[in-house]
């Protein structure tokens, strides 16, 4: 009974999600598009390539993406490194104490 209820719940949520995504979201390919020469470019990357030096002042576009546009993501990366170091130090200290 419970298992059937859970299964029905999962199916209902799945149908709801698929329905919502297929109707209420933006259609595919609706990125901000711009004309470059005769071609239309739909990518955000092209916009970043053109505007990054003026907007962030960094000559290295990778840096302007990593810390300028996505600084929060890179802060998370640094946190991942911190967590990894803390984990390694914790494990090896416990290991050394037991020996």
């Amino acid at each position, binding site marked *: 009974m419970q298992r059937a209820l859970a299964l029905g719940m999962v199916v209902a949520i799945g149908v709801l999600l698929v329905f919502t995504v297929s109707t209420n979201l933006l259609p595919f390919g609706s990125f901000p598009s711009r004309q470059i020469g005769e071609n239309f470019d739909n990518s955000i990357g092209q916009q970043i390539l053109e505007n990054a*030096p003026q907007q*962030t*002042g*960094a*000559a*290295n576009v*990778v*840096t*302007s993406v*990593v*810390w*300028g546009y996505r*600084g*929060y993501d*890179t*802060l998370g990366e*640094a*946190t991942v*490194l*911190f967590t*990894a*170091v803390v984990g*390694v*130090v914790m494990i*090896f*200290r416990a*290991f*050394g104490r037991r*020996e």
Partner: protein
Amino acid sequence: MAGMTVIVRTIARLLFPFTFLFGAYIVLHGHLTPGGGFPGGVIIAASVVMLLLAYGIERAQKRMGLLQAEVLESIGGVAIVVLGLFGLLLGAFFLQNVFPLGDLGQLFSAGNLPLLYLGVGIKVTAGIILIFYAMLFAFREEKE
């Protein structure tokens, strides 16, 4: 952990300042040339680990001890967050570039990006050295 032969010691001693300088260059020029805090920090950590392998644990700990590495890693992490909070203090978003941008291509340009990369470089350097020390100290007692 004992050191190595005279040849290795001499080469390591000669290479240490150049490796350190190269790592510092990569960190400080992260907003101008390919590189940045993560690879530059690893290179600086490699220079210290090279000294450690050649001279033994005492010489390397004189350059950067265990407690020093722990404190430095925390300083690097706190520096990033404080630089991010600067944006909030000055009425902008978290981690937004609120410092003057300067001229494109100069060393002192791009606002807070080089400062953030400096924080990351310190953090990565101290973190890698800390991992190395932790692994070393875990197996040291049984050897001696």
